[in-house]
Each structure stands twice: as C-alpha cells, then as structure tokens.
C-alpha cells in the first residue's frame, strides 16, 4: 500500500527508477545488484557445459555482410582485375547448389518458379587446377634447373597440396566468400574454390597475371623451407650415386673426417664425401651411418643448388613495358 503510494509519486524509493514510455505506460527498472543474476548465470553455464559450444557460423550469416561489396573488395585487395560474374561463379560449389535445391524442394516450391539460377564452378575448377599444375612445373624447372624430375614433382605436389594451398586460400579471405554446403569449409572444397578463382583470374586478366598471382602467393610459401622437408627421400646416398653417374662425376667415397666423444652418450662423427679426392660435402651425425646420410643430403643440396646460401627467389614486380613482349609463363619465370 505504502509502496503503491510512493510509486505514484515517482520517487526513488526502494531503488526503483521510472521511465515514462508514454503518458500511461511506466517502465520500472532497478539498477542495483540483481539477486536472480547469479542463479541464471549458473544455469546458463551448466547448459553450455552440457551442450558444448554453439557451432561456428558462416560470416554471411553474421551481421554486416554485403556479398557484392565483399567480392569487389576481394579483387581490389589483391590488385587484380576480375570479371565479377566469373568470380562469383568461381565461389559457388556444386555441393552448395545441391543443398539449396534440396531446401527449395523441401519448402514445397514449384521447381520452375523457384529455379536456382546459379552456375557451379566445376569447369573453372578443372581449368584452374590444370593451369596451376602447368605454371608451377614450369616455374620450379626454371628456378631450380638442376633439380631432377622427381624433385620437381615433389615440390609441385607440395605447393598444390591441401596444407599449403588451403593455408594460402584461408589467409586471402577465400573462405568467407565460398558458398559450400558445410561450414567450416572442408579442405577439398576450399582447394577447388581456390583453383576456380585462379581460373577466373586467368579468364579475366590473362594467363600472365594469373601466373604472377601464383608466383606472389603460392610459391612464396617455399621461402625458408629446406628441400628435404618438402621432398622426402628415403635413400639419399643412392640418389647421390644416381646423380653423380648422370653428371659423369666419379662415385662419392665417404671418409671419416673427425669424431668426438666416441665413448660417450653423445658421440659426434663428421663424414665427408669425396669425389675424385675432392671434398663434395660433409655432414655431422650421432652414428657413422647418420653422418653419412647427412653428408649425402648436404651433397645433394649443393648439386641441386638448393642451399641456404643460393640466390634467393626473385619476386620483383614486372614493369608494364615488358608485358607485351614476353610470352605467358616466360614473363613470370624470367623474374624467378
């Protein structure tokens, strides 16, 4: 009763605040400690623990998303001129088209009325993959001319593999724009979207610009990588013998150069490989076999010119004057 009287007075009694939404509606709120808050928070925490965290949402399902602006910005950010229609087609995956059609069918819509006007990126995918394969093989052969065919193939398959290509695609913002059935986008879908984007670039700006794009983003992932991290060689000594016979060099002879701490827990052996009495390479190891293997690897690195001290890869920008003269891959290759 008394509180009712005080309420009509609109006073700050018992911590009540009043806001008039209009003349007849009064909203009350209390700003002090809310006693129900603790049990509510406890219940929500238990619910979270029981059900686990909520599944990740696509960026397009979160607020502030304008697809057309995003696609345009994607092209401008990479300093490439894309034909926007082709680029948008490149992002549409067949799994997405299938799920969309199923959803529309499930909604009971007439198929002709609610036809999905989206073309998927299957042909762009195959074109892009073929182009990337061709460009990367040419680039590796031009950058490392002494590398044999297996080495070239290993480097190309490393660069086209899911780890490197998907890592590049994720950090270029391709995942946000990809339209796929599942989220987070699985690696194969992301990889095929990336190939499709490269094909779209080739169609829009020509194979030269597409080659430069791949050189700048994909081949730069080789920086800091050792040859044998990328190419797993089981028998380096055998490979070295093959390489020496191919070049007409005498077969390498291993000799123990120095050893230290032989009777201790951590022995150290330095084995050197001699071709015709001249030192080819030396390598350290805990056992004689390990040291010989390491020496063989070191010798292979020297023969293939893939050492840490070799000339770094060339990423210099191409001036517009020379674009008209050189051919497609030659342009990108001549600088790297």
């Amino acid at each position: 009763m008394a509180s009712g009287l005080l309420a009509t007075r609109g006073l700050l009694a018992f911590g009540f605040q009043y806001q008039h939404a209009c003349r007849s509606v009064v909203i009350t709120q209390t700003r002090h400690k809310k006693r129900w808050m603790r049990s509510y928070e406890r219940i929500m925490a238990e619910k979270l623990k029981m059900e686990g965290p909520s599944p990740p949402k696509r960026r397009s399902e979160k607020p502030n998303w304008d697809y057309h602006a995003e696609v345009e910005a994607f092209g401008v950010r990479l300093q490439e001129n894309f034909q926007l229609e082709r680029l948008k087609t490149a992002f549409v995956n067949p799994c997405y088209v299938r799920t969309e059609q199923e959803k529309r069918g499930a909604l009971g819509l007439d198929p002709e009325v609610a036809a999905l006007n989206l073309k998927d990126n299957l042909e762009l995918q195959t074109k892009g993959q073929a182009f990337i394969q061709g460009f990367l093989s040419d680039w590796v052969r031009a950058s490392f001319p002494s590398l044999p065919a297996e080495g070239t193939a290993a480097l190309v398959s490393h660069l086209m593999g899911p780890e490197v290509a998907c890592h590049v695609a994720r950090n270029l913002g391709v995942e946000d724009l990809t339209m796929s059935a599942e989220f987070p986008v699985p690696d194969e879908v992301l990889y095929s979207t990336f190939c499709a984007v490269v094909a779209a670039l080739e169609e829009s700006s020509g194979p030269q610009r597409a080659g430069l794009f791949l050189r700048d983003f994909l081949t730069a992932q080789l920086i800091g990588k050792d040859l044998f991290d990328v190419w797993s060689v089981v028998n380096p000594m055998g490979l070295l013998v093959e390489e020496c016979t191919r070049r007409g060099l005498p077969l390498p002879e291993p000799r123990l150069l120095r050893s230290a701490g032989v009777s201790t827990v951590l022995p150290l052996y330095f084995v050197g490989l001699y071709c015709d009495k001249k030192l080819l390479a030396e390598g350290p190891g805990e056992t004689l076999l390990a040291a010989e293997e390491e020496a063989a690897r070191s010798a292979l690195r020297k023969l293939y010119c893939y050492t840490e001290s070799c000339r770094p890869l060339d990423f210099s920008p191409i001036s517009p004057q020379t674009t008209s003269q050189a051919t497609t891959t030659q342009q990108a290759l001549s600088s790297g």
Partner: protein
Amino acid sequence: MTSRGTPSRFLKSVLQNGVGRYVCQLKRISLVFSKNAQSSLGARHFIEEGVVDFAKKNPGTVVYISPEPCRIPRIVAEYLNGTVREEAITSKTSQQISELVTKMANQSGLDIIRIRKPYHTDSPSIQGQWHPFTNRPPADGFIRPPGKETSS
C-alpha cells in the same frame, strides 16, 4: 606482469606479405555507434567527415556503418588471418577515430603482444653457421682435451 608471464611471439608476416605484393590485411571494418548518445558524438562526426575518405584510400577494405542503440560505440576490424579486433571509441574525437582507423588498416591481424626480436630472417647464415669444428684442422686420432703435448 613480467615478459615471462605474458604471451610473446616472434616477428612474422601473414603469408609472406610484401615479398610478392603487398596486400592490405584489413578486410572489413564495422563502425557501431548510436544516433543520439553523447559518447558517439565523435563517431557521428567521423562518419560525416572522414569515413568516405578512409574508404577511398583503402579500396580493398569493406566499411560497414551500423547505427544501433549502444552505450559504447566501437570499431570492429576483421583481418585476413581471421582475427577480429574490437576497439571502443567512447568519447573520442573525429580526428582520434580517424587516426585509430588508419592505424588498424596498417596492422596485420597478428596478436598485439610482445615481439621477442625486432628482426627475422629465413637465411641466418650464408657461409654456414659456425660450430666448434669449423676451421679446425682435422686431428689424427680422437679429439682429446689439450694438455697432453709434451716438449719432445
């Protein structure tokens, strides 16, 4: 907290940015502000004067403006490597917001924590890193501690 207690990282770039071509790492920036509140005054001025210039200078960044009832106006920046950074711009002037937004556009999305070394190289040694056996003449037998040489 000491540097051992706080997180730290080495100097690196996202995807070797700058080696091939430089890509602005900021992919979208959202400005959340209130239409009437006092704290969003600077944000409203920035939207009137400065945001279009910023968008023109950074054509690779998508700028979103969302007026909504909020007590704290903020800028949400999303970077290419997935990092999302939120900065409150309560009671900042238009000039300060413009500087902040330029600073965010120049950052990559890597964590703002202590950088252990201000340099990084992928080829630390050209002639081969020194180890105790470099330039040491090979010994005949096992390498032993010095002190066994006699004057004979």
